[in-house]
């Protein structure tokens, strides 16, 4: 399977390489048709995973990886959706395994999958608020716990608390503390 064959089978898409996988970027409207063509015409019958990527202002990216058992080759299909309307077509009708992967992506990123039979939460405990894998989701333990490395050498805890010097923030804590 070469990038040219992939482009020919799926229509006008961008193809590139990522390690040994071919990666194609697909417009949102063609998401389901492209994945169907990949399964039927390119014999990528093994559904590996589906996940999301939070690209901040560029919206969300949905990535699905398919594998060909006969050709032993992998293909990643990616599509973008805007932050204001984070929905794509569901692949659960094309690959049954996509059902739970889409439920996970929906609860962790807040994505919608149109046509999915039941987008109930899968992994998070009941009553969980928010979408943890979005980049603006703050890990409260990092905000609550005082960073032991925030003190300067030779500074005691009392001095550090009272100091008006600009503090060195730990990783993962936004400047405002809470979102």
């Amino acid at each position, binding site marked *: 399977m070469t990038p040219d064959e992939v482009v020919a089978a799926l229509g006008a898409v961008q193809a590139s390489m990522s390690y040994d996988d071919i990666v194609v970027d697909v417009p949102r409207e063609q998401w389901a048709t492209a994945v169907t063509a990949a399964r039927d015409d390119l014999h990528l019958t093994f559904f590996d995973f589906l996940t999301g990527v939070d690209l901040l202002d560029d919206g969300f990216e949905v990535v699905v990886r398919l594998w060909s058992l006969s050709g032993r080759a992998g293909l990643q299909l990616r599509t973008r959706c805007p932050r204001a309307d984070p929905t794509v077509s569901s692949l659960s009708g094309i690959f049954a395994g996509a059902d739970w992967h889409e439920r996970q992506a929906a609860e962790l990123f807040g994505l919608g999958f149109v046509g999915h039979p039941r987008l109930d939460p899968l992994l998070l405990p009941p009553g969980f608020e928010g979408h943890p894998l979005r980049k603006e989701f703050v890990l409260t333990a990092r905000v609550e716990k005082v960073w032991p*490395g925030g003190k300067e050498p030779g500074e005691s805890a009392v001095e550090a608390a009272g100091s008006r010097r600009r503090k060195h923030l730990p990783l993962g804590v936004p400047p405002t503390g809470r979102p």
Partner: protein
Amino acid sequence: MNADEQDLVLRTASGEGHYPDAEPELPPRARGAIGLIEENCTVCMLCARECPDWCLYIDSHKEPLPPLGPQGRPRVRNVLDRFAIDFSLCMYCGICIEVCPFDALFWTPEFAYAGLAATDLVHERDLLGEWMASVPEPPALDPAAAPAPEATDAAATERGTAPPR
């Protein structure tokens, strides 16, 4: 089962060679607890900053030192007040030991320090200093390797050929 397998079963079921009757044979770089050489610590805070679990708690203050010579400036030294490692959080990654520029932290293979309370697992600097007693010898240097800069500098100082400070 053959004679060797029977032997193995009898040996393992007999209770001999088992903890606590016998200590386990530990590999050379086994990670158990972390020892601290307080004299080497300059309180640079690198270990506390790099720890992914935020489990090193360091407090210090500055103390003045007299100048080195008649034209010298007054100097300042960091003095440790508290150096604690919370082993209930520690994930034994070794980043603190790797990042310490002054070789103040060392691995020791001690593993038997369970506690009846979670606070028993916060080891203060006296206990961290005691762990140094069980730190194994470092591996021997490769005889074919170039000599370490510390050794060449020390030799040059003795000969009187070291560059002036």
